[in-house]
């Protein structure tokens, strides 16, 4: 039976929130009453991690991952419950381990080592291997403020892991390093794991979690949503993100009042886009494969009598580049969209025989405006109304954002 290294029982953390600073002062006075609201970041967490386990911590931004790590390392104090850790912990929280900008890299390594409770001689004994690992060369004697963020994280990682800890906690810090350095870090983490160290690792990189961890915890709204095999947890996590997108269409009509939902929306409101859907053989989807036949359906509610209305759609890639845009005017449908009456409904269906976009994530912008240009009366403009994930199907693989249908042949001739 392996020993439990990290034990967390009924752990909860709430931050006090005051409307005004003076309310806190009031609260401190005898008989001042309560003036704060508690904002719960983590709620009733229970888990234990055994020696040698490597656990990936995943969750959306603001789910409470970093707060959990700060509680585990003893930097923050729990509001409820308790944390027990057996053994020496090395933590790499955010960038730089509290490096002092004016001190040289050398002095900072010394300080960081001493902060972990090591003696000067202990740190000096590791200095060569730290410098070799960080590969910062002559910069070691320069003040840390002159370092790039990559150099800083290299030095921090090298220092934190110079002496093998019993528990290594890494918070997204590695994302700053380049691919070469990340590989180097992962190799070192693997070595530690083989030597029996326990790892707790926060990352948004599913590949890193899958390859490094044998267990994953998904934190969602301050609770553990699922605890298990990394592949299974990451699938669930991806589904959770997709669910978030679906929520957008469910709440389409409330979007202007509810700012928690993604998508930027503007417009004068004479017409309102009710829903945007992608259908594959009549069923709604957001995961499509290259070259599939799809229908794009937009529902538009007309709220006032309008002389004309134009509906347009635009696909953008992950970086916001426009990939493909078309509207009802360009499609020659202007005549059928003249003199629309209030309280009528318009459904636009675009049938795409071959959805020939490359692998990646694309967002869909939908707009309803007057005349043929969106400058003449912008009724409703909805950026990122929908996100579509494109993956490879059975066809040949290719690079880039667009699939050009090709057929190929090879001729070989023997000369001479």
């Amino acid at each position, binding site marked *: 039976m392996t020993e439990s290294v990290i034990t967390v029982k009924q752990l909860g953390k709430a931050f006090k929130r005051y409307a005004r600073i003076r309310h806190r002062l009031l609260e401190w006075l005898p008989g001042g009453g309560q003036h704060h609201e508690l904002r719960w970041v983590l709620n009733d967490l229970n888990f234990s991690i055994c020696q040698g386990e490597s656990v990936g911590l995943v969750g959306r931004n603001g789910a409470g991952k970093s707060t959990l790590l700060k509680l585990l390392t003893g930097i923050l104090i729990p509001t409820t419950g308790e944390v027990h850790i057996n053994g020496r912990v090395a933590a790499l*929280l955010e960038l730089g381990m509290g490096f002092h900008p004016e001190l040289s890299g050398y002095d900072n390594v010394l300080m960081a080592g001493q902060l972990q409770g090591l003696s000067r001689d202990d740190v000096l004994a590791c200095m060569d291997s730290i410098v070799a690992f960080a590969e910062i060369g002559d910069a070691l004697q320069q003040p840390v403020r002159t370092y790039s963020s990559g150099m800083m994280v290299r030095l921090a990682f090298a220092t934190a892991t110079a002496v093998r800890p019993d528990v290594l906690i890494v918070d997204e810090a590695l994302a700053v390093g380049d691919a070469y350095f990340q590989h180097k870090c992962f190799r070192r983490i693997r070595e530690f794991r083989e030597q029996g160290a326990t790892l707790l690792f926060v990352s948004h990189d599913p590949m890193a979690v899958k390859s490094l961890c044998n267990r994953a915890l998904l934190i969602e709204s301050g609770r553990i949503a699922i605890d298990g095999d990394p592949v299974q947890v990451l699938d669930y996590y991806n589904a959770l993100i997709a669910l978030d997108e679906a929520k957008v269409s469910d709440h389409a009509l409330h979007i202007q009042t509810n700012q928690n939902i993604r998508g930027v929306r503007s417009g004068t409101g004479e017409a309102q886009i009710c829903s945007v859907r992608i259908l594959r053989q009549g069923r709604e989807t957001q995961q499509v494969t290259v070259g599939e036949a799809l229908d794009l359906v937009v529902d538009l509610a007309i709220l006032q009598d309008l002389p004309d209305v134009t509906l347009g759609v635009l696909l953008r890639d992950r970086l916001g580049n426009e990939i493909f845009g078309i509207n009802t005017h360009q499609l020659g449908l202007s005549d059928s969209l003249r003199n629309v009456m209030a309280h009528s409904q318009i459904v636009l269906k675009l049938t795409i025989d071959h959805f020939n976009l490359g692998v990646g994530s694309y967002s869909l912008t939908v707009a309803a405006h007057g005349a043929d240009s969106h400058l003449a009366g912008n009724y409703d403009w909805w950026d990122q109304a929908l996100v579509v994930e494109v993956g490879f199907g059975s066809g040949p693989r290719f690079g880039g954002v667009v699939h050009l249908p090709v057929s190929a042949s090879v001729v070989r001739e023997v000369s001479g």
Partner: protein
Amino acid sequence: MQKKEISGVKSLQELWLFRSYILGSVNRDFSLRYKGSVLGVVLVFIVPAFQILLYVLVFGNLLKGRLPGNVTIYGYSIYLCCGFLFWNLFTEVLQRSQNLYLENANLLKKASFPSGALSVVNVTSSSINFMLAMSILITFLLVSDSLPGWEIIGLIPIWLVVTSLALSLGLCIAILQVFFRDFGALTAIALQVLFWGTPIVYPIQILPTWLIPWLQLNPLLAPVSAAQALMLGSALPAAEVWISTVVAFTLTTLFASRLYRQHKSDLMDNL
């Protein structure tokens, strides 16, 4: 009660574990201060030496300032230097403690270590500065043949009193300041009042007699006057003058530990 003793021993043990960090930080503190200077560590001596020299020349030789009941040339200069050295010690420890959390937020948020270590670093650095300056003053006394004798050993307990007072007061402000930034600015004003309420540049005898009992409310009055008296070989302050010092120290220590216990968790949340 017993539990309290155990936690006290435990925090001392914790500090002992971090002795290497403490020593290293004191070291870094000095190297940071003189980083980028050509003279380097020589500046540590030059600054206080020059200050002492200036007082001696201006007040001893030029202005011919004399203390009531002391006819020597350097009497007033020594009085002034001694007062200033202890005042500087007090303000240095106070100001560094009051910014303890805010200045080290970057560190406290990323590494888990006893924050008491930072106080030890602060007191050690400030005390080394004080001792350097004091040794220069004592050298001057030796050279000018005005050294009173072995009585100056009494400066050691006075150093301890001034440092503890500054530390306990500084920690109160440090904690309060994390939540209410007002305290930093208010302390600056209070220090001005305290400075003029302490006989450093003027001898207490020149004040109207009705004012003296009010001055005795100042916790710094007793230690500073005692130090001046030791240096000049005059009479030490009476026992009742020390009351405000003892009361102030007790109250600030209790208040600081109460604040820390009650708001420890919020403190880290607010950094």
